[in-house]
């Protein structure tokens, strides 16, 4: 499975990473490899994607801050539903994730 080096395959304490089932999600239409059981935000990090949304007015990039569902910086559009916390939502094969691009002005 073609993963880049953001995945920690070997760990001195946790050992070797068990291979989870591979799934494919789509970020703004482009396919990304992910592993079943992991949240969308984690899968994006593994793919080297750090931008989860653009801010409403200035359209500045934002990324996940807390990873526990509190800060809402990682909210994206998932399968058409806006404001989904991607750190708390697990990947599903074929899932369509879109980057919110701020308010229309």
């Amino acid at each position: 499975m073609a993963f880049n080096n953001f995945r920690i395959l070997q760990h001195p304490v946790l050992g070797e990473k068990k291979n989870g089932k591979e799934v494919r999600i789509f970020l703004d239409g482009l396919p990304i490899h992910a592993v079943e059981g992991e949240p969308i935000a984690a899968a994006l990090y593994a793919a080297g994607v750090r931008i989860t949304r653009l801010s409403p007015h200035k359209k500045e990039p934002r990324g996940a801050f807390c990873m526990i569902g509190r800060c809402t910086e990682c909210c994206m559009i998932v399968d058409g539903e806006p404001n989904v916390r991607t750190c708390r939502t697990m990947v599903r094969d074929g899932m369509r994730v879109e980057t919110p691009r701020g308010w229309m002005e």
Partner: protein
Amino acid sequence: MSLPCEQLDLLVIGAGPAGLCAAYEAAAVGCRVTIVDENDKAGGQLSKQIHRFFGSSHHGAGKRGIEIAEELFGDCLKLGVDVRLSSSVLGLFSNGEVMIDAPTQLCLVNPGAVIVATGASEKSLAFPGWTLPGVMGAGAAQTLINIHRILPGSRVLMVGSGNVGLIVSYQLLQAGAEVVGVVDTAGSISGYQVHAGRVRREGIPVYLGHRLLSARGSTGLEEVLVEAIEDGTVKRFEADVLCLAVGMSPLCDLAAMRDCRMVYEDALGGLVPWHGADMRTSQSPVYIAGDASGVEEASVAMEEGRIAGISAAEDLGSLNSGEAAERRAAIAKRLDELRAGPHSRGKLAAKERLYAR
């Protein structure tokens, strides 16, 4: 719209160290206990603690947090605790009902007692560039590396030399990242010597008496500017991750919503529900335990959880008051030992002030 309302005896909100211990103690004396957690696994913050704990054998010394979490969860299951994961509590209402967003539906429950053990969230700092992708809580980085096994980046600068900052720094190294430094405005390291020693042995430079000036980058973090407070010398770090380990805030909104009297204690992380040493809040039958009652260590959270479980069991009629008081006293003694060190002095004073208010 009306939902059917399920009658429960004891509801514990949060399956971290405090909640699991509370559930165990209450179930051990015969209470029917339901525990809910919004995560898909039990364990809370213990699930990402891959270092060995120290202290007494009673507090899991020598074991890693992840192992303690598994044991506590297993103990709860053995006692028949009803565990509901991937379930968020949306509200505690004044009529005693609790709304839960469960995986397949919204449901309403009416428990005889509620223990709020919802933990804490990380604080942030405001500085130019603080919103750039790559600027994150140290705990968030720890979740990514130790639970999801994914690195948030390759070069990390850590802000804060408390235990979280120190532990996450060397765990990032273990995970394969480069840690370019630990920065703190304080003149001395604020975490435990054992963690500081580890960071030093790994060769991570610690910049004391330094403050964050700004974070820069176009689509994400690229560099961080830090200034020596004394002489204004500016250091520039190339980094794609800036971790903030600048303290935690208790997550006690549910208790506030239920009209528990809230009090401010800086040393405990901010606003917390008033409670006694028996973990009863101002609203019966609502109890609080762990970081939600004031941010301390996981071992403290476990003991507070046990006390809350005993108090709830007493009020539900599963323990007589003499027995409950005896059990609480034994745990209180262990809590005193945990809070005896110089690092806990401020927290202990704050807790004592709070009990007396």
